[in-house]
Structures are given as C-alpha cells and as structure tokens.
C-alpha cells in the first residue's frame, strides 16, 4: 500500500524531501518487507511529528537504529534513526553518557577510554547502537540489561514525549527511577511479547571505571589486528576444567573475589572463531583447541589499577583455577593471540565471527538465571544439537553452549546457538524445530527463556499471566494500534 501523495507530503514536510523515500527500489536494502516509506528523522521533535502523523492516518510504524534484525509487518512506516547519531553528553563526574540511537558502541567506548571510562557493550557487537539493551562480555563487572539505563527520553506510540527518571523533574540524566516517573518495568525488550512500543530517542547509560590505556595499541592489518604489547596490568587467559561443576566452582569464586574485569564463558569453538581470520582456519584451529582443552571453560581478563592490584588479582585467579583443576590454554598465552582476544573482547568486535561467518546465519536461545542451573539446561540443549551436527545441518561446535556471570556471578546468562546455512531449507527447519523444543523445555523446567519464538499464550500462565497484563498496558499506550509488536531490535 503506497502512501497517497497528500500523506506523503505531510511526512515530507516534517523531514524534507531528501529524508523520506517510498521508492520500492530501496526496500530490499532494509528487510524482506514492503514498507510504506522509510523516513530519516534528525531529532526527537521530528520523531514526535512523524509518530503523530502515523496516529492521524492510522499507519503502523517502527524504528530501527543500526538495523540488524527485526520483524516488520507489511506497509509499516520505518523510522531509520541513522541521522540521530550524537553523543549528547559524557558526564565524567556522575559517570553517565547520554546518546542518541545511532551512536554505535565502538564510537562511545573510544570516547570513554580517553576519559578512563567504559560501559557495557552488548554481545551483538560494538557495531550496534550504544543504547541497545541486553547482555555483553563485561556483564561480570558492569551488570547488564536495565541496570545500565538511567534517564530515558521516549516518544510514546501516541506521540507524547515522556522523560523518564530524573529527566522527568529536571534536566539531569543521572537516575532512571526519579525524581520523576519511573517506568522501568515497561521500558524493556527482554520480556515477552516484544519490545516496548514507541521510539526511544535518547538514553543515559551508566559508565564504569576503565583501568586500561586511553587507546589500545592495535597493530597489524585487517583481518588480523592484535596489540603491539599487552597493556600494563592487564592479562587475558582461557581456562578449561575437567567438569562443569569444577568450572562453576571457579566461576563462583572469581565472582566472590571480584578480581575479573571480564569473565566470558566461551566454548572452544568460539575461541577458534575469535582468533582466526577465515572459515577454513577456524575449522582447523577448533580441531586443535578441542584436543587441548580438558572440558568446559571460560575466558578471563584481569585488569589491575596498579601493579600491586594486578599482582594480587593474578595470584588469586591462579589459586582459584588451580583449586578447580583448571588448565590454561597455551594458545592464548601466546602474546599475539592474547592481544587479539584482549582487544576483541574489550572492544566487542568479533561477535560476527562467532555467529554469522561460518554458515551465514545462527539461531540462539539465551537463558537468564543462576549459572549452575541454567548450564544443566544448556547441556541438554547441546545434546539435542548433536544429531543435527551429525547430519551436517549445523556447524560442528561439539554441541557446546556458552555463558557468563553477571554482577560478579550474582546472576548469570547461559546461551546456546546453532550456526547454519540459511539457504539450506532442511537446516533452517531443523534449527527452528530445535529452538522451539528447547525453548519449550526451558519454560517447562521453569527457566526464564527468550519466549519470542514460543507460543506466549501457552507459556504466559507460567509467568503469572504477564503477557495479558502487558497487552493491556500496550493497549493503553497505543490506542490506535500503530506501534506493532515484534522481536527485539538490534
């Protein structure tokens, strides 16, 4: 359904003719959806005006930032927020940064490093919006999800600008809960049935101390960047353990002692993805590393604030690993490989190697909760992958899962994915079935699984009928039903 000339003109008057397009030619560039138009607003006022027009004409709309994934009904008005790319403020004293949606994490992090600060970049990678909610490699020390969002500016589905948290009563961004309205429970994308409707136009993000240099000494040429030297008081290692129990024991103690800057429960396959530059090399390195590791493991970065602090943390780490019969992966002790991993896992720049490179697609199930319990679920999901591996439908990673501690292990996230060729219909179907079965198993066993692909009406009752309340809230927020539900936007 094309927009009428009159309606198109109304949108055009808001953003200018160069910032709106309904030519079918551009649509495949976005997603396999026929959008009514793509619009590029420059600021919150323009977003508000567009949303109000959508309500006036009963047109559905959705917004994207870097636009990796998303589900979009046909004839949606797509707000591509690419022009909203300003870092509004970096408040060093109160340790927060205010950004617009198209500031990517790599940009913000580089600015923060110059100031001795860092933030939680999501696992999707530093190529994604810094505003993105979710989990990442630094969860151990930075926490994740809604813990890192402070005040937020939100254009509701009706076009009202709501300033949440301290922004609601002042021009300050320091708090997400007040003084001013706190809608923390609503501003969420991690719970079913989907993302919060409307458009987030600015967000304050919590910042953390960065003990590393103002700029990492990256050398080499793409695709093999490494560090000229390991920065002072920093170290990266991969440890494997004889059993899941031993690994969990070490993970828990590392959390309790608060010595790790990053603890990422990579499996051997993900280590291989990170340190290799192509698929063939990855296969070969995975085979080699699989022989070296003694069982499940994790990657750790230690970062000291002084030589003494570093020496202490290192000593504690070695004791914990030794007590759990852990073994350091020799390949990672090579300074070049250590540099590759340290840089990539601080800058979160190799997520695509881990996920898309091998086959072109991946399908993942993340589970939140206490790690020792969620790992038990993940072992089952890994076993269920093995027949698919045997048939050659998914990439062989040994049926592995991964995960990491959040807030020094008080919480945790466990995840498992299948990598496959999306052009192979048999593989695609098999992976979808695997995902559906394992999600259902998670819900039945009372784990907090990502339910977007599951039948929410079936699983909702196990979550206090959350979905019914959510729908009522959405109806109030979006009386014209112009802001459709969908998967979380990356």
């Amino acid at each position, binding site marked *: 359904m094309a927009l009428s000339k009159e309606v198109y003109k109304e949108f055009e008057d808001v953003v200018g003719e160069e910032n709106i397009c309904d030519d079918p030619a551009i649509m495949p560039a976005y997603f396999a959806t026929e959008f009514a138009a793509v619009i590029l607003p420059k600021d919150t006022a323009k977003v508000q005006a567009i949303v109000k027009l959508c309500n006036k004409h009963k047109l559905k709309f959705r917004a994207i930032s870097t636009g990796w994934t998303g589900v979009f009904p046909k004839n949606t008005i797509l707000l591509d927020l690419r022009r909203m790319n300003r870092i509004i403020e970096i408040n060093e004293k109160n340790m927060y940064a205010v950004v617009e949606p198209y500031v990517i994490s790599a940009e913000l992090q580089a600015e923060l490093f110059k100031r001795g600060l860092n933030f939680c970049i999501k696992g999707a990678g530093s*190529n994604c919006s810094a505003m993105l909610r979710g989990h990442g490699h630094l969860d151990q020390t930075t926490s994740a999800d809604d813990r890192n969002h402070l005040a937020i500016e939100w254009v509701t589905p009706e076009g009202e600008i709501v300033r949440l948290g301290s922004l609601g009563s002042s021009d300050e961004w320091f708090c997400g809960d007040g003084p001013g309205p706190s809608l923390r429970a609503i501003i969420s994308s991690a719970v079913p049935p989907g993302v919060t409707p409307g458009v987030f136009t600015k967000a304050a993000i919590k910042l953390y101390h960065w003990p590393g240099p103002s700029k990492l000494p990256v050398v080499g040429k793409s695709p093999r960047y490494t560090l000229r030297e390991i920065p002072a008081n920093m170290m990266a290692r991969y440890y494997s353990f004889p059993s899941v129990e031993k690994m969990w024991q070490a993970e828990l103690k590392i959390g309790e002692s608060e010595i790790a800057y990053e603890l990422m429960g990579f499996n051997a396959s993900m280590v291989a993805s990170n340190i290799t530059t192509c698929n063939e090399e990855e296969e070969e390195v995975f085979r080699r590393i699989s022989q070296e590791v003694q069982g499940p493991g994790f990657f750790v970065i230690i970062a000291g604030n002084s030589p003494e602090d570093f020496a202490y943390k290192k000593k504690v780490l070695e004791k914990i690993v030794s007590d759990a019969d852990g073994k350091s992966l020799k390949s990672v002790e090579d300074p070049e490989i250590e540099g590759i991993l340290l840089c990539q896992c601080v800058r979160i720049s190799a997520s695509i190697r881990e996920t898309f490179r*091998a086959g072109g697609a991946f399908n993942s199930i993340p589970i939140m909760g206490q790690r020792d319990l969620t790992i038990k679920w993940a072992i089952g999901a890994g076993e269920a992958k093995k027949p698919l591996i045997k048939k050659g439908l998914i990439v062989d990673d040994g049926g592995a899962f991964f995960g990491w501690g959040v807030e020094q292990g008080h919480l945790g996230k466990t995840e498992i994915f299948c990598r496959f060729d999306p052009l192979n219909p048999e593989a695609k179907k098999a992976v979808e079935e695997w995902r559906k079965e394992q999600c259902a198993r998670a819900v039945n066993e009372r784990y907090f699984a990502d339910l977007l692909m599951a039948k929410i009406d079936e699983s909702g009752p196990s979550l206090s009928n959350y979905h019914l309340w959510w729908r009522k809230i959405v109806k109030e927020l979006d009386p014209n039903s112009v802001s459709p539900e969908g998967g979380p936007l990356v």
Partner: protein
Amino acid sequence: MALEDYRGDMEMCCRCSCCKFIPMQMVQGAEYSYACPSIAKYNFHAYSAGGRLNIAASMLKKGFNYSDKILDIVKNCQMCGACGVSCNYAMDMEVLEPIQEFRIKTVEDGHTVPALEKVITSLGNQGSMVPVTGKRGDWASGLNLKDATSKKVNVLYHVGCLTSYDKNMQKLAKATVNILQKAGVNFGITGDAEMCCGGRAYQMGYKEDFLNQAKKNMAMIKKAGIKTLVASCSNCYQAFKVLYDKYNLRGDLEVLHITEYIARSLNEETLKPSKKVALTVTYHDPCRLGRLGEPWIHWEGKKIPGDRFVFDPPKIYRRGTHGVYEPPREVLNSISGIKLMEMTRIKEYAWCCGAGGGVNESNPEFAMWTANERIREAVSTGAEAIVTACPWCEKTFNEAIQKNESSLKVYDIVELVEKAI
C-alpha cells in the same frame, strides 16, 4: 564472474552495518568513524554496501526492474572498497566484486548516466578519460625522453590521462621524470601513443570499453618488449597490476607504482634525498594504491555442500591486507624535515578522496563533499599539507580546498621527493 555468481556472497550479508564504519578496533571516537562516503552522505541503508548487495540479490530473484532510484544508488558510490575491508574483518564473502558486477550489469542492460556516457564516448573517440587539449605527449616537449615504442628501455613510465592533459597536473609527470633520471633509470614514455588504461571506465561499469583499452595497451607493451611499467597515477597502477591480471591480460609485466619504485631506489641507494623539506604532512592512502592495489588472486571453485560457507579449493579473499601502504611512508620518512602525522582513517581503512567510481564525473557535488570530509580530517592532525600519490586525489583535494578557502596545501609525493633530491 557475473553478478549471479555472487548470489551466495550477497545472501551472506547479515545487515550488521560494519560496512558503514571503519573496522571496530580502529574506531577512535565519534569523529572519523565512517568508512563509506555513500552511506555517510545519503543515509538510506540502500546506499551502503549491505544495502546494495541486498538490492542486487533481490533483483536477481525478482527481475531487474530499473528505476531512476536504482541508478542513483548504483552510481553514487566511489567503488573505493572500504566497505569490503570492514566486512571482511569478520565475514568470508565478496563485497566490492558483486557491487562492481551490479554496476556492469546496469551498463550492459543499457541503463546509463549521461555524464558517464559522455566520458566513455570521449574515451572511444579520443582515447582519454579527461578533456583533450593538444596532444597527449605535449607535456614532455623539450625533455628529450626516450620513446619506449621504438627504443630499448628497462622501464616504461605510463603517465595517465589526467597527468598528461591537465595543465595543473603535468608537473607530476615532470617530477616523476626528474626522479627517474636522478635515479639513473633507463626509462621511456610512449608520448602521443600512450593510451588510457581503461581503469576508470571499469569503475564506472563499462567493462567492454575497459577490456578494449587493456588489450590495446598490452599489445603495445608486448610489441615494445616492455618488462616493467611504472605508474604515478593510482588508477592506472591498479588497472595494469590488478584489473589486467583479473582478466588474464597482464602476462608477466611487472607493474610498480612510483612510490614503490622510489622506495626500491632508496633501498638500493640509487636515489638519495639530500635536501631538507621542512613540512608537517599527513598522508592520504589512495584507494587504488592501498586496499585495492593488492594483487588479484585467481580462484575458481565450488561451494562445498553443507553447513559452512567454504569452497573447494579454499577461497582466499582480498581483504585489503596487502595493499601498498609502507612504500609511500618510507619515502616520506626518508626526506629530512618532513614530519608525518597520521590521520585516524589510514591504510586499508582510509577514507576515499571522492573522485572514484565515476562520481567525480556524474555527481561532482558528492565528490566535493567526500573530499571535504578528508580535508577536515587532515586539518585535525595539525598538518600543513596533505600528501597523496594519485593525481585524481590531488585534483579533488585542491578543488575542495579552493572552495573552502582552507590553508591546507596539497602535494603528490613525487613533488616532495623532487624538492628533496
């Protein structure tokens, strides 16, 4: 290979947006983080490499229904290849090659742009990609240079269209000649007989016109018994070295850029820069000397059926790793008094000058916008001058600087070497 041969590569695109930015580890802040001028200027995702690949893949499925918008998307790209470097940091897939084939297909299907048609007509009629005034070899009048078509020389200096005909650029040819003479090289030129390399026609999508030029050039070179060709234009360099090889036309001709030849002469001590040149400079890596100047890799194979995007035999991708980055820097560092300040976007992830891919001819305003971005970045280093190694870069930068009344100076590297010897 035709566009359909890249179907698998195009469908590997996961829309991660990495093609828009320089490699993530190299991002140094909110400024100078973009790699692709096209998306940076035009904003719609269609103007990114990922967008173009997804559009081309969709057209392969649904048919090639051309519109003005499609042509606008296809043509407003400098074909600088920065997208491919950023993508190929993590992904195994061709990026620039399918975009090039998409461009070739639009031309073959008869969907062209008047400004580019005019240039190609001129190439056919007058053998030049730039307006012709006088004879091609007029710049060499009175220099008594050897005619490489009739006399035995060790090196052919291929001057290029812009340097030959543009009166403001002829100084580069004279500087190059001066350097080669000081280095004691037995070289020659082909003067009025020199022909356009065809490289810029190829960038514009005119493959047949390019091949026509390539065949004529190689016939002349073989007839003259030339073993080594030196180019001072990065477009010519890439055409002779990479594109001719891609189409199996280069044979065993050694192709060097003048910066490589000077660096070699410095190492062999046949050239000694002795005079001081007191100047703080920043170096701009031309796309076709840098990332696109890396050798062509001949490969033919098939995807291995199964879970991974791998091939038999294994495919080695050109990721920009082996471009010509160090020789120009070695040359600059050999000159006493030169202080080199690097920009944020360098080497394999350098920002384009704006002149490539026919943009200079079809959309000069976009070319200027792109050049202005580079000038701004150069100025941010504190350099007094931006140094490059391609006449097209120099011309575009000069035009941008004149329009903006910037005090930044522009040099080709041969101008500084000439001052130093």
